[in-house]
């Protein structure tokens, strides 16, 4: 496009100059706003991930990491059944925790949104408050509940259900499951609550008006509209449960989960490359999980 700036009144040219300045500065402002988080993400998030991937392709010689390329770490994982067993056990545990969290969070969030008014925010806060306390405190709280002299045993003996304290309550996979579920449940409730709260009340009325009783409305209206929230919560709960190695350590009976074997490789065996290769495994599982979610087109709704 041709411009004839010389022919324009001076005021117009001046205004254009200002506009150019603003446009240039807008880019600068954008760079200033987006720069720090981008640098943060690249430096502290993507960087370590890339480093982890690279390290998983290195090897140990004389107790030292040497940067010599190899696939040996991966062939070891896939040739020794124990590692895939650990992975499978972890995925099963994380799936159970995630499904249970859905089963608990969905009615809870639905109840909060639909049947509470004055108390709603207080009750919602009660869901969030555990997040303010330390993770370790919450794990240890379960020790005092499930332990040999714990609350549960005392109660069971008190009402004469059992005569001896049950020691199998603590230090079992069940204890790990219960603890993981309680600790990560808020991460399911929050997105599910948000999704259900966004459903306009007139949709419930419309559904009822068209002949649907309560449970059919839940099936055809609430469930599909809450699903993006359920998926978001599942991603949180599943990945948090998969990566957790403290809870199995403190509550478990020694059964190893993927987090434990990774921690062992870094902290006990000092085999960083093998630990890195093991750490890539849950990443692959999560990527597959997200890819499936994407295929169903549910990520856009988050």
């Amino acid at each position, binding site marked *: 496009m041709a411009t004839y700036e010389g022919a324009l009144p001076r005021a117009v040219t001046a205004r254009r100059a200002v506009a150019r300045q603003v446009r240039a500065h807008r880019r600068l402002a954008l760079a200033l706003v987006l720069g720090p988080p981008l640098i943060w993400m690249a430096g502290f998030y993507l960087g370590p991930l890339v480093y982890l991937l690279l390290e998983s392709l290195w090897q140990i010689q004389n107790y030292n990491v040497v940067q010599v390329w190899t696939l040996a770490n991966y062939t070891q994982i896939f040739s020794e059944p124990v590692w895939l067993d650990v992975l499978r056990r972890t995925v099963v545990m994380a799936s159970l925790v995630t499904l249970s969290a859905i089963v608990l969070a969905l009615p809870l969030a639905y109840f909060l949104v639909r049947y509470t008014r004055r108390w709603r925010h207080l009750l919602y806060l009660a869901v969030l408050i555990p997040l303010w306390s330390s993770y370790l405190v919450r794990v240890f709280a379960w020790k005092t509940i499930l332990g040999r002299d714990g609350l549960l045993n005392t109660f069971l003996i008190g009402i004469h259900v059992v005569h001896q304290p049950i020691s199998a309550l603590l230090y079992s996979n069940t204890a790990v499951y219960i603890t993981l579920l309680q600790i990560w449940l808020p991460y399911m409730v929050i997105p599910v609550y948000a999704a259900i709260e966004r459903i306009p009340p007139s*949709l419930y009325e419309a*559904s*009822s*008006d*068209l*002949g649907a009783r309560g449970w059919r409305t839940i099936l*055809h209206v609430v469930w599909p509209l809450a699903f993006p929230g359920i998926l978001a919560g599942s991603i949180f709960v599943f990945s948090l449960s998969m990566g957790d190695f403290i809870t199995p350590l403190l509550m478990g009976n020694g059964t190893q989960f993927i987090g434990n074997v990774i921690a062992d490789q870094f902290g006990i065996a000092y085999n960083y490359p093998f630990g890195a290769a093991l750490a890539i495994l849950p990443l692959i599982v999560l990527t597959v999980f997200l890819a499936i979610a994407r295929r169903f087109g549910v990520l856009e709704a988050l």
Partner: protein
Amino acid sequence: MVTPIRAPDNRAAGPESETADVRLEGASKRFGDVWALRPTDLEIARGEFFSLLGASGSGKTTTLRLIGGFEEPSAGRIYLQNRDVTSAAPYDRPVNTVFQDYALFPHMTVAENIGYGLKVKRVERKERARRVGDALDLVRLSGLDRRRPSQLSGGQRQRVALARALINTPAVLLLDEPLGALDLKLRREMQLELKRIQREVGITFIYVTHDQEEAMSMADRIAVMRDGTLEQVGPPSTVYEHPANAFVAGFVGVSNILAGRVIACDGVCRIEVPGIGPILAATADRHVGEEVLIAVRPEKIQIHPDSWAGSHALRGRVADVSYAGAFTRYDVTVGDQSFAVLAQNQAAGPIAVRGEDVDLSWAPDSTIILPGSVHDHSRGLQASSATA
């Protein structure tokens, strides 16, 4: 044209069922100390196009929600086709609703939205598809069945909401300001469309609106509501020509309302209005000396730029002229009273200008004497002067 959707012919036995589809008996609704609906009796006939007209907060939606089953009345009973449904759930009533915000399910396609009621009633898939197709034809949306509500225009959404309700062949269809979100042109189109559909399916429509023109042009009968009360129920022409009180006279159309005293009645009554003069009214049965309120519609008044030869003209001065194409509105001051006058523009342009002295006249039978005494109307007069 085929009419796939028809009102079900499941009349209950009994004499009233012939006429009344919907019956309120002393039904009322209170929220705290607000009467959203004061105790009300109302009957709506089968196949009638009934409109609830009223200002914001007058209780229209509440009345509709009571009939739809979304609220339970605080007192009184509600009958649908002679069945007491006072505490029946919405899914147990032969009624469907077109919601003000349409309330379409965002995660379903147009076809799924329309077929929802049938799916819930476990109508078999093939039959469902056929009836959804018919409903789409009825509201002229064929071809859009795969779209989502978010991909539709306001008018199209409104049609989906209508089809979704009609496909269940309700006895009564409730519509809460269904055209409120549409622009004027589309509104007019949809009004005609709704009338056509109502005639075709023969279902009773209860139509809430605060647009009096819409109510007048569409409804068989109108109920004018104010503060939870039905001020008047009747055919549009009756409500317009014989308003029950000053509020209705002011709310439905524009009225010039005057307070006066009957000085003589002899076939025609002479009413002395202080500061203006005597006015003739073609109603006889009024006592001499009685204080009355009278209303005159602006389009019934003739404006004479030259002095008028006939009797009982009012001499005034034009205070304002608003040209509106087909007609012109003159605001004429007579004494301390301002008269609105609407004149058709038969000649080109206005026939009087601002500041000009004119005569006003109207036929005695255009003078409406509002029923009841002035005292009854004091409340209504305040409200109507606010609307004028």
